């Protein structure tokens, strides 16, 4: 077989192979019309090679002209495909240039098929037999050039501009390799089609047409671009797969609830931790409406609204709600929501990540309950210290009542009975009974195990009540207790019983601090004053004060300087005050003794909305 035949056949075969593979790619991915365009280019190149081979073997001018017409068609198809390939693939080329080239070439190809000797020649004068340097012969036409060929030449110039411009912009845009491959292919093509071919046409160079090799270069460039695109796409796909595996592993193992919902609110993903917490099997819950299953009935309409709002791109910061498990047990969960998007950019549902706060909330409840219980126990145990005082406080009205009653008996026994006196006595009996009941009531209140009830507390009344409760004790121990109240009512937000307990504790401690001192130092002042948005109660004694370490140590549990003291009093007192959003601390006075201070929020200032209402 002759070298020419071999070379052009191989060129055709190579182009056809590439065209075939592009067709296969296009079948795989119909949406990508670039594959179709590139396969058209490749098949055109193959056809072009075969036509060139036929031209070499042509033996009459009519046949030569017809072959040239078809050859021009392949050139036309290739160029148009190439122009639009570049346009679609890079997206950087100028559309008007592509349109202009298409229009010019379409006109040119029309003229090509109307002139008998194609676009190239208006007339072929002779067919000359040429010889290659290795002695093989081939046919070459000699004739008058067709003036319309200028149309195709102008289009070729435009292609050069178009390709260089598009490639350059793609190069700058970052797709350098592809720009070089396509740009390089086009340059080779232009060299062959735009320089070599006119020379052959003009008879200056005696070689066969070699356009198909230029085409091969372009097709090769295109193939390179597409293959490397496909390659990087598949690498990207593998990467995505690996990523997805990693994320899924994370979701499957994270100690958070993860629930995916589709657009309809049906569960399309739920992680094992969520299943474990809720007590569901995956099959129980996948494909079912999450909100109708896991949200308490009362909250469902609101939850659906929220979900739909979220799907429409509404913003939803993290929120907390109650989630029901399979057996109806409630979890308290804080959720963060992510809106997921489909490949086409539409919202494809949500992914919710939740933290189960139930154990923490339960622990907080438990801690509060324990603190209240401990407060109660210390209150009850503090009763021991109050016994003497309470006995005195009960004894007084009892004494008055007994003596009054016995006096009444005597007044009634006189003749005539002194009813005026008896009436006064009955009045006093009722009064003293009330007084005794008050003592009992205060005592019972302190012993109560009711959970704290926060309300407005009149701090002056509180301080007076407590000092009243301790009156017997202070009298026996000859301690003077003064309560200094502000002119305005001192209303704080708190639980009366617990605050009484705190003050009781502070006063009993102060009693102990001064009991053994001379009379002029057995004096305790309870001051109540306003400190910006808080009330401050201070219990000031004239004792020996506290050691520097003691100022903080006294608040530690089991710290006690008293014989038989549990050492819980101040520790409990502080936790009570802190549960009131207040502070309790101790300081030494500048002269002598110590002062225990506590702050409590002013009633009404706690919640600005309440204050406004």
């Amino acid at each position, binding site marked *: 077989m002759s070298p020419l035949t071999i070379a052009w056949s191989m060129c055709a075969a190579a182009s056809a192979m590439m065209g075939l593979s592009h067709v296969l790619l296009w079948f795989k991915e119909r949406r990508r019309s670039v594959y179709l365009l590139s396969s058209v280019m490749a098949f055109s190149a193959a056809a072009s090679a075969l036509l060139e081979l036929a031209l070499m073997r042509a033996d009459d001018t009519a046949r030569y002209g017809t072959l040239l017409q078809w050859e021009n068609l392949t050139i036309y198809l290739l160029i148009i495909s190439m122009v639009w390939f570049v346009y679609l693939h890079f997206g950087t080329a100028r559309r008007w240039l592509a349109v202009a080239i298409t229009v010019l070439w379409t006109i040119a190809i029309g003229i090509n098929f109307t002139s008998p000797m194609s676009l190239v020649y208006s007339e072929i004068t002779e067919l000359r037999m040429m010889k290659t340097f290795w002695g093989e012969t081939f046919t070459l036409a000699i004739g008058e050039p067709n003036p319309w060929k200028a149309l195709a030449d102008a289009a070729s110039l435009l292609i050069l501009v178009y390709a260089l411009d598009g490639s350059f912009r793609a190069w700058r845009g970052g797709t350098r390799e592809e720009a070089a491959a396509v740009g390089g292919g086009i340059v080779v093509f232009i060299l062959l089609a735009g320089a070599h071919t006119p020379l052959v046409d003009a008879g200056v160079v005696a070689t066969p047409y070699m356009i198909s090799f230029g085409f091969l270069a372009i097709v090769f460039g295109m193939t390179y671009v597409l293959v490397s695109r496909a390659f990087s796409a598949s690498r990207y796909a593998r990467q995505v797969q690996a990523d997805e595996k990693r994320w899924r592993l994370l979701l499957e193992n994270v100690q958070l609830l993860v629930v995916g919902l589709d657009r309809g609110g049906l569960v399309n993903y739920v992680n094992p931790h969520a299943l474990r917490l809720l007590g569901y099997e995956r099959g129980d819950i996948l494909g079912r409406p999450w909100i109708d299953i896991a949200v308490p009935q009362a909250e469902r309409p609101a939850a659906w609204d929220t979900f739909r709002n979220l799907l429409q791109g509404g913003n939803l910061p993290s929120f907390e709600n109650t989630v029901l498990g399979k057996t109806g047990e409630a979890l308290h969960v804080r959720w963060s929501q992510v809106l997921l998007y489909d490949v086409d950019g539409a919202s494809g549902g949500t992914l919710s990540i939740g933290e189960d706060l139930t154990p923490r909330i339960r622990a907080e409840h438990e801690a509060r309950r324990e603190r209240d219980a401990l407060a109660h126990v210390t209150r009850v145990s503090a009763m021991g210290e109050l016994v003497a005082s309470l006995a*005195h406080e009960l*004894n*007084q009205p*009892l004494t*008055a009542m007994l*003596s*009054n009653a016995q006096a009444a008996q005597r007044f009634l026994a006189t003749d005539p009975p002194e009813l005026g006196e008896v009436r006064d*006595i009955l009045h006093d009996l009722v009064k003293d009974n009330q007084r005794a009941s008050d003592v009992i009531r205060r005592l019972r209140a302190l012993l109560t195990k009711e959970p704290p009830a926060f309300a407005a507390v009149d701090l002056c009344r509180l301080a007076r009540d407590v000092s009243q409760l301790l009156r017997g004790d202070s009298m*026996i121990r*000859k301690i003077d207790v003064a309560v200094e109240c502000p002119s305005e009512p001192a209303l704080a937000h708190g639980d009366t019983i617990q605050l009484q307990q705190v003050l009781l504790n502070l006063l009993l401690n102060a009693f102990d601090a001064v009991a053994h001192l001379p009379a002029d130092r057995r004096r305790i002042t309870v001051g109540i004053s306003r400190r910006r948005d808080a009330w401050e109660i201070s219990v000031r004694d004239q004792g020996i004060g506290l050691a520097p370490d003691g100022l903080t140590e006294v608040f530690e549990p089991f710290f006690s300087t008293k014989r038989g003291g549990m050492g819980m009093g101040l520790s409990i007192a502080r936790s009570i005050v802190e549960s009131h959003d207040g502070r309790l601390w101790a300081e030494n006075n500048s002269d002598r003794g110590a002062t225990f201070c506590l702050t409590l929020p002013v009633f009404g200032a706690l919640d600005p909305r309440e204050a406004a209402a």
Partner: protein
Amino acid sequence: MNGDQHQVFLVDDDESVRQALTRLLRASGHRVQAFASAREFLESGADGSIPACLLLDVSMPGLDGLDLQRELQARDVALPVVFITGHGDIPMSVKAMKAGAVNFLAKPVRDSELLAAIDEALARSMREHAERRELDELRRRADTLTPREREVMARVVAGRLNKQIADDLGTSEKTVKVHRGRVMAKMKAGSLAQLVRAAERIGFTEKP
């Protein structure tokens, strides 16, 4: 004790108790004067010039019952004290009794107990008053004696015979007898024994 000239003082800081005890004592026929504090009582100037007793609460702010008892002793006011207390303990009551309290009663106190204690205290007060009246009378009588009669009386109560007295004073036995008769008359002594006891009680000495 009804009808007698006497007085019960009451000191208790608790108004209800004070009022009730006042009523009970009045209903029992006592004259009662009540005070809200020890200080108030001291400032009233009550001194026990008539038979009286003090019903006193132990625990009070400021001066308490025991303080007041001490203060009265310091001022030499003879006033029997009955303590009442809501929380009496033994050391406190011992201390009070040692200081001369008549009784130590626990609140609430029954009328019988209270009145018995008051009666006892008033009886003591009256006894003391009667005694003091007698002494005053004896002293008044002794004051009427002339110096010579005092010399004679001192020797008579010392047990000396008329003769010895006459020798001592350098006078006649007869004169001594006359003085002695005057002494017995002025001192309203029916016998030598009575004169001796009277002398003892007023701590009689030769020089007034």
